């Protein structure tokens, strides 16, 4: 139980129209990620679903029931905040127990549930500590624990990993994915980090300026972006977008080629360029090259491909992987070789 329907929802703050008009269907048990640059309205959309902000128009339905006017607590959702929002003067145990206590649940049952949640999240040894005595990752788990004891119909995550260091972020990503697999509850997750979006999501919603640019599975977005924005946003390093003669020769205003779909060579190739920076990551190297007539191009090449700053490199695009876009920035059919 936990399908969410967003119907014609809009939100304005004074003069500013943050969300003009959004329609979205979130199915029961899905892991949906809202992704987009800062200020695209993804957090606002989440807060509208949570009920922390009032909608300016439209309807929000949870399990088919209209909750547009319902208070946050009545919606049966649980939220994990960016700052964790733990209650600093309460022990971990009381933090996790708080929503149950507010629901006037029996104390014995509360204890059982809190201990169950602590076990799942490896917090049993920390139950009597205060949040201030915990590390970032532990606090994050307490926040998740406080959310799961309520057995909500859906979890809402608002950039939950952005305050953690890179290594911990990787671990927590796995833990949240694992939690979703165990609980099979709907999860709505907001992030600006496309790696989190690609690795965790069943369905990604790409937002830009309050509009949905594309909805789809991670691979769908990667393989066939619907427009220039999605093409440029999904994928790391970014897709190379090329205009001019080469694009015209493919019958398009703009063509895009992902850095991993460029074949490098030291001897010959379609494009000749000078390496400006070579970022060695070990397995891969990101080559930033200045290609004659096209400008800066990024290529993802094998780590063994030894080129240095200032050297010449030849790049040949895999034309079966080209993305073509028209003058409105919309994708033009399957990106096969043009006329």
């Amino acid at each position, binding site marked *: 139980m936990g399908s969410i329907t967003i119907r014609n929802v809009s939100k304005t703050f004074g003069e500013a129209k943050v969300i003009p008009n959004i329609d979205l269907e979130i199915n029961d048990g899905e892991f949906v990620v809202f992704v987009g640059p800062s200020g695209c309205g993804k957090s606002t959309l989440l807060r509208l679903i*949570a009920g922390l902000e009032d909608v300016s128009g439209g309807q929000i339905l949870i399990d088919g029931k209209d909750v547009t006017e319902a208070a946050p*607590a009545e919606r049966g959702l649980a939220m994990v905040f960016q700052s964790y929002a*733990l*209650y600093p003067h309460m022990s971990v145990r009381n933090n996790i127990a708080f929503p149950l206590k507010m629901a006037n649940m029996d104390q014995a049952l509360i204890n059982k549930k809190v201990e169950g949640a602590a076990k799942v999240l490896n917090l049993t040894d920390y139950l009597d500590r205060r949040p201030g005595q915990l590390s970032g990752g532990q606090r994050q788990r307490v926040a998740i624990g406080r959310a799961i004891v309520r057995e909500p119909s859906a979890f809402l995550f608002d950039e939950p990993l952005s305050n953690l260091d890179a290594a911990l972020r990787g671990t927590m990503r796995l833990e949240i994915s694992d939690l979703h697999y165990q609980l099979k509850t709907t999860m709505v997750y907001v992030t600006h980090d496309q790696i989190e979006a690609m690795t965790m999501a069943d369905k990604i919603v790409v937002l830009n300026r309050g509009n949905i640019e594309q909805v789809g599975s991670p691979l769908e977005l990667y393989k066939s972006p619907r427009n220039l924005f999605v093409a440029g946003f999904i994928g790391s390093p970014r897709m190379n977008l090329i205009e001019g003669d080469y694009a015209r020769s493919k019958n398009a205003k703009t063509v895009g080629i992902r850095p991993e779909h460029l074949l490098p060579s030291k001897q010959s190739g379609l494009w000749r360029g000078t390496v400006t920076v070579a970022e060695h990551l070990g397995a891969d190297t990101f080559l930033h090259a200045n290609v004659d007539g096209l400008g800066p191009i990024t290529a993802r090449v094998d780590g063994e491909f030894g080129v240095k700053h200032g050297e010449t490199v030849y790049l040949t695009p895999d034309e079966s992987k080209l993305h073509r876009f028209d003058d409105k920035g919309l994708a033009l059919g399957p990106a096969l070789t043009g006329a």
Partner: protein
Amino acid sequence: MATFHTRSAARLMMAPSVLLLFAWMIVPLATTIYFSTLNYNLLSPGDHAFLGITNYQYFLTDPAFFDALINTLLLVGGVLFITIIGGIGFALLLDQQIYGQGIVRILAIAPFFVMPTVAALVWKNMFMNPVNGLFAYFFRLAGMEPLDWLASIPLFSIIIIVAWQWLPFATLILLTSLQSLDEEQKEAAEMDGASAFSRFIYLTLPHMARAITVVILIETIFLLSVFAEILVTTNGGPGTDSTNLTYLIYSQALLQFDIGGASAGGIVAVILANIVAIFLVRIVGKNLEA
């Protein structure tokens, strides 16, 4: 940073101010203790005979002393009660988004800038006067006999005046504390199903605990020595009904001209204040840690 050199340099440079502060405190204290053992009355100049603890015996067995002690505690406790409860209420109100917020805040803080003598005179003559006072007008409007505040309930009247002066201070400190409460915590509590009242009890109040402690500590220090308000309104009367320790010592020294007795009273007051301070630091000072 704290190497041996910086530490010894710091000690050396702090020494003059420590010595000055020490002398500032010790010299008056020593003089007061010395006077408290003498038969030192301004009406009988000349030889000040050494009396030992006689002054203390007289002061402590004086029936006025016990009254003053009770009055001091009632005054401090009453004002603290009103300012903490009222301060929390006002802070919650002033925290709301309203039109003209800045002006309302300045108005609310204004009483703190009015000096005690003036505040007490305004209350005495404009509000509490049984003939011309505003309260008397309201009483008559309600068809009742006007209350002579300062004569019939003198201590309570003084508590009201002093509380009016200290309410802005409490409000200000509690308001800043309220504004530092994390917005996401409030939202989390809202999501967790806590009602507005539960949010206040479980989230806001614990968050304000430290600020409340600060208000209690600072106000207690100043309220133990309330004097001007009593001098300009009731002169400690009727009888000893509104005499606190400070006022009793004043009357001993400057109305009865008994410097020795007043000094003994001063030492007693210092000891009592220290007892209160120890209790306060033990009970509420814990909140200031961590």
